[in-house]
Every structure is written in C-alpha cells, then in structure tokens.
C-alpha cells in the first residue's frame, strides 16, 4: 500500500536536493533571462504584454481567446496578459517577491511605495521620450502640472511613472437637510453655528423616534472620516491622516500646526458635549455605516459617489430623508477647505528589464487613455461586462465566474464623474449627489504636499504610520489627556524623526516649485 506514495515523494525529494545548489546561486539576478519577446514578436504581429494590477476583485483571468483581449488586440496589436494578486494578499509583498525572483511584468501598477524602490535601485525605465512617441493620448490628457510632480519625485528629474489624476474632489462634508428642517435651522456657516446645529440635533430628536439616540456627527477608528472637523481649521487631512501643506509660508506636517491644535480643541469640546459620537474612535467601518443608515447621524464626511446604498437604507426609516453638501463652516481666523489630492500618485511604470517591450506596453496604455475608446472601456463586451436592458447598456456586477476586463485609465475629470453618476446612481438621486459634489468642489483645494513621494519617510516608520499623532489625537479628544499635551506631541514628533522628514519634504517642495 505504501510503496507508490513513498516512491513518488522520494523522487520529488531527490529532485529537491538536486535543486538546492541552484537555489544558492539563484538568489542573485545577474543571470540574463532569455528574452521573452523573441518568441512572440517575429512570428506574430501581435505582442503579448504582461500587465500587473492588484485589487481586481472577483472574476477569472481572461485568456488569449477572451473577446475583450481580442478587441484590444485588434485595435493595438497588443495582447494583454493580466497578472494580479490573490485576494487578501499584501500587494506590496507580492511585488517585492516578483522583484526578488526576477519575474517582473512588462508594465505594472506600483503600490505601497514600490515605485521608489524601483527608481532608487535602477529598475525603472525613464519614460520622458517614450511617452510622447508611443502614448500621445496619455501624454496630452494628463496635465503638465502632474508631469512636473512626477519629475520631482525622482532624484534625477526623469519621468518614471504615469500618475493617477483625479481632478474632482472625491470627498465631501454632508449634512441631513431633513434634520435641519425639523430643528428649524439653516445650513451652518460658522463653527459656532455648526455647534448650534449639532446641539439641536442632539436635543430636538430630529429622527423623530422619541429617543435621544442621535449622534450629531460621527467618525471612525483612528480618527478616520471626520476630516470636516479638521478642514474647518484649515488642516490638510486625508481620511484622518494629516497631510503636508503650506503653513506660515513653509510646507509643514499639518499634524503639528497651530491649526491642528485649534481643531483638536474644537473636536474635544464636541466630544465632551456628546456632539461627536463618543464611540467615534471605536467605530469600525460597518458599525459607522450602520449608524448612518439607521438615521442616527446628522453630519458626516465621506465619498458622495457611495451615497446610493446609504440613502436607500435611510429612506426605509425616514421617507423624507435628504442629504446635502455642507460648505466648510468658517472658523474665526482660519481658512477652511476640503483637502484634495489630485495627482502625483504613481499609476503605471515599466521595469528596465521590460525595456524591449516598452513600446507595446505604452501602446496598450494609450488605448485606454484614448477618449474615442471610452464606450468600450466603460462597458466592455456584451454578456461579459454589460448587458443590454431596454436598449441601454447596463454594466454587470463582477462575478466569480466571469472574466475580469482590464482597465488602465485612471484620469478622472469633472465630465468623467458626471458620466459615472449617471451610470451608477438611480435617476431620483442623481441631482442630490451632483449637488453634494458641487458644494465640496467649491471648497476644495489641492494641498501643497500633493504627490509627495513616500521616500521622505525612509527609516521613520512611526512617522509614516502617524502612530504618534493618532495616540495624542484620540487621547486628547476623549479627555484622558489635557489639550496642553499637544505641545509635548510636537516635541516628541520632531525628535522621533519628524524634523528629519520635514527637511526632506522641504527640499522636495523646493524642487516642485522650480
């Protein structure tokens, strides 16, 4: 009974031991890999390009016979081969392993700062000359300003990646209009008025259930998604993380500014009077969402594009629910704004080892930035990415058994957003969502630190992870520590590496401005 299994495993193990030697030498990547392009380029007209993109969600990987792949091939002469991470994996780690094992794709979407590893260690291809030549649509559609930021992120001033560009603010402060109507107050214009509104929300039972269960405003663990409370005081915040912006004429970490201290003082007051959900720092995403859905929260900060499902749920308990965008209430002596990060985050780059195929990789990329392909990019192939209902194309939800379609464009303009709202939001909610966007767009400002490369944090993990900031923010707000502790924070932050990081950021910013 045992013999066959034994024999098989023995064979495997013999093979294994033989390979031991090859591994010892296999860690270096000096060895030239056989040119992958050699077999494809000459015989066929089409070239296969390996594309790496993480977070593709559910679905199968399209093969060469896939209609989406074929359509793209027809148009560009490039067959794309999608490489993606398994769900739940750490994409950064996945890319690192690809580098370590000398197995890089032809074009990739870097994540977690991997682009800087590639640039620093000479693994990234400079695209300055290639882009205008092979990807004119990419080159022209992305604003010059964004290219400048990309240049500033490399030590030699070359363009090593195609940036993500998002020209509309994605986030907005929102408030329940129906609640305002019930308590008889207008949309607040100043921080004092905002506080009055919150007080009324707390005491006047705007959700009408007879219980004092209203949470006038709420946020999430680590101080995420309460950026509106910081924004009023001119603090650049991005999902609860202080950003870099101009303060008193110099670029500075928003976490250590006077503005931040004022904002924390205000938030602390709100917390003390239970105007800010006292469980803010314990709210996991789903709990926070349920509170909004259940008509418990009057004012919050989030993505208007995500409003659909929340609003549908609100309507169940409050048929006259209505959400509007709230202009940043004015704080005396401060210039409030909605933080906008628009450009500079890396989107696509080409490894040096895939130099031979760069032409084709860029042609593929260009296809997606060519506006005449918009319709195909949005809807893909009938039956796979969309179905036709009443003569209208409707995008299908991703499903495990259907192939994923590659999308490479990450350039969102006002027009793109309008189209997206039309396609993903039911007609009766479209105006509401558009209005919210209009309000937040009016308040939005691109921050000075937009596009900052994360190499500035090198060697200071605690500064990068904002751990110190989060600890002081939460403990001061919940009243465990006095506000004066904030000065101690500034001191500790500087000593823990903040000072060194600030210097690097200032050097970077000087480069951007030139």
């Amino acid at each position, binding site marked *: 009974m045992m013999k066959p299994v034994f024999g098989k495993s023995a064979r495997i193990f013999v093979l294994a031991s033989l390979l031991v030697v090859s591994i010892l030498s296999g860690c270096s990547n000096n060895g030239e890999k056989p040119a992958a392009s050699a077999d494809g380029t000459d015989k066929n007209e089409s070239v296969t390009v390996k594309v790496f993109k993480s977070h593709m969600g559910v679905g199968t990987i399209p093969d060469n016979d896939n209609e989406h792949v074929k359509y793209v091939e027809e148009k560009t002469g490039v067959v794309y081969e999608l490489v993606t991470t398994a769900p739940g994996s750490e994409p950064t780690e996945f890319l690192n392993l690809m580098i370590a094992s000398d197995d890089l794709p032809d074009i990739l979407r870097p994540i977690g700062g991997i682009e800087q590893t590639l640039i620093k260690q000479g693994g990234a291809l400079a695209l300055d000359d290639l882009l205008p030549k092979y990807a004119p649509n990419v080159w022209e559609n992305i604003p010059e300003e964004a290219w400048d930021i990309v240049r500033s992120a490399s030590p030699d001033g070359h363009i090593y990646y195609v940036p993500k560009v998002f020209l509309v603010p994605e986030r907005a402060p929102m408030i329940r209009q129906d609640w305002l109507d019930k308590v008889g107050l207008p949309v607040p214009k100043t921080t004092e008025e905002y506080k009055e509104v919150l007080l009324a929300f707390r005491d006047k039972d705007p959700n009408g259930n007879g219980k004092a269960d209203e949470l006038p405003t709420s946020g999430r663990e680590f101080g995420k998604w309460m950026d509106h409370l910081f924004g009023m005081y001119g603090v650049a915040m991005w999902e609860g993380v202080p950003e870099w912006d101009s303060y008193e004429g110099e670029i500075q970490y928003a976490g250590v500014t006077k503005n931040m201290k004022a904002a924390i003082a205000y938030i602390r007051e709100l917390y003390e009077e239970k105007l800010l959900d006292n469980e803010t720092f314990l709210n996991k995403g789903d709990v926070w969402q349920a509170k909004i859905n*259940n008509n418990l929260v009057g004012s919050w900060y989030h993505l208007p594009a995500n409003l659909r499902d929340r609003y549908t749920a609100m309507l169940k308990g409050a048929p006259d629910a209505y959400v509007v965008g709230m202009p940043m209430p004015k704080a005396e002596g401060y210039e409030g704004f909605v933080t906008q990060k628009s450009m500079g985050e890396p989107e696509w780059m080409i490894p040096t080892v895939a130099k031979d195929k760069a032409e084709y990789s860029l042609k593929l990329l260009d296809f997606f930035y060519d506006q005449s392909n918009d319709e195909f990019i949005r809807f893909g192939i009938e039956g796979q990415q969309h179905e036709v209902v009443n003569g209208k194309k409707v995008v299908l939800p991703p499903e495990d058994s259907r192939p994923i379609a590659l999308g490479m464009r990450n350039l969102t303009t006002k027009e793109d957003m309008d189209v997206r709202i039309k396609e993903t939001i039911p007609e009766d909610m479209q105006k509401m969502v558009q209005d919210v966007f209009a309000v937040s767009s009016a308040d939005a400002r691109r921050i000075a630190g937009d596009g900052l490369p994360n190499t500035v944090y090198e060697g200071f993990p605690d500064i990068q992870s904002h751990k110190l900031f989060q600890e002081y923010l939460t403990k001061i707000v919940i009243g465990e520590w006095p506000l004066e502790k904030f000065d101690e924070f500034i001191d500790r932050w500087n000593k823990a590496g903040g000072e060194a990081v600030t210097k690097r950021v200032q050097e970077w910013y000087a480069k951007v401005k030139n």
Partner: protein
Amino acid sequence: MRKTTGDQLFQFFNYAFLIAAAATMLLPLLQLLAVSFSSPVAADSKMVFLFPVEFTTASWSHILQNTGLWKSFGITVYITVAGTFLSMLFSVLTAYPLSHQQFLIRKPIMLGIIITMIFNAPMIPFFLTVRELGMMNSLWSLILPGAIGTFNMIIIRTFFSGIPKELDDSARIDGCNEAGILFRIYLPLSKPVMATVSLFYAVGYWNTFQRAVLFIRDPEKWPLQTKLRAYLTSPEELAAVNLVLGDYDFNTTTLKAATILFATIPIVLVYPYLQKYFVKGSMLGSLKE
C-alpha cells in the same frame, strides 16, 4: 455508588457553566447565518440579530450557482485529503525513530527540528526556495512546504514515547521489523492521537491561505480560503468604482456571511465524526499498567 451532595452540586454547576459557555460559541455562527439570509439593507443597518430580517435566499443562490467557488471547493478538498495523508505518513515516519532510545542520533535531530520551530525563515528566501523547486502554480506548493508540522510530529512522538517498549520486544521476537512494529502495533494503539493530529492537519490544509497567495498565480487553482478573501476585502474606494446600477437582493455584507459559512461548515463537521476515537479507554489504556 453513593453520590454526595458535593458531587451533585459540582455536576450541576459544571453543566450550567459548560452549557452557557457553549452557547456563546454558537451565537456568532447563528448570527452569520441570519445575516446571510437577510436583505442587504437590513444587514448593512445591523438590524439583524440571530433571526433573518427580510428573509431572502439571494446570497446563497448567488454563491451556490457560482461555479468558481465550487471549483475552489474541489481544490480545497483535494489538498486537504492528499495533504493530510502525506503529512500523517511523514510525521509518523519521523516521530517513530525519534521516540526510540535505540535511535542514537535522536537528540541532535530533535534539537535540529525544534530550532526550525523557533527560528522562522524570512519570507523571501522561503519563497525563492519553493519557486526554485519548480512548484509555482502547482498544488504541490500548498502541500509539500508544510508536509510536516513540527508541533504535530512532536505530539505523535510524545504519545509514541508513552507506549511501553516491552511491546516492541515481544513483536520483535514474533519476527516483526521496525516498520512492522510501527504499523501493526503503534498505529492501532494510538488511534486517539492519530485522530487528533489528522484533524489538526486537515484543518490546517483546509485553511490554506498564505501559501496560496504566495505560490498560486492562476485563479483557477485558488483554494477556498483565497476565494473567500475576495468577498472579505473590498476597499471603500474600489466599491465606489465598482458600483453598479441595478437591484440585487444581496451585497458584500450578506455575501461575506454566506461565503464564510460555505467555507467553514464542511470542516467543522469533521470533528464530531472523529469523536468516536476519543472514547475513554479506547485502545492504549488497556495495555498500559
């Protein structure tokens, strides 16, 4: 036999405590079950508590009709069965010599093995090793790198050590060689521990996730736990991009609950089946004086 009041009191409190504690362990699964049969709005609004709200089977029919998930299910069953068998074989073969005084190099080898339990290899060299062995994208990569669980092997060894060595001697007199003693005497005598360790291995293989993430690039070969993560991790920004217009009676929250149960229930059912090997005094004891 006379029962004292103390005994009875103890029995009462023992039952009360165990039943109460056991109930708390069942609740989370009941809750998941209720969520998986509820409407998306009810689930997202946390209106569900142990009983479905706005009952619907949409989530279940969605995942059960999903061929991709069944394929992963098949792969998981395959690696669980094959892996458990291989692992038991290797572990028993390793544990047996290590439990015998006659095996002179027992101590250094044991030390060498325990060192690997405490010192973990960094991820990149581990990855490169498996890759160089040509196991990328092969189901072997999910089995062989964990073929021997040191903890499990040591458990087996501990039980083997407890078997009286006089049994070895008498078997040897009967003409058994070492393999004969292992398979004819040791294995039948250690059914409870074999059942236990098989269960540990089976659960380990069933929950294979990390290795699949590292070594399997082809989604067709992903085991169930990897597929499950596709439903568990849906970043907010992605959800915004993937928003699709249309009315569905399920969403990520309800699908999440259904897939967790789908991936958990089969392996949970293994234990009650194995319990018959835990009957007191089953084998070993009758020989141990």
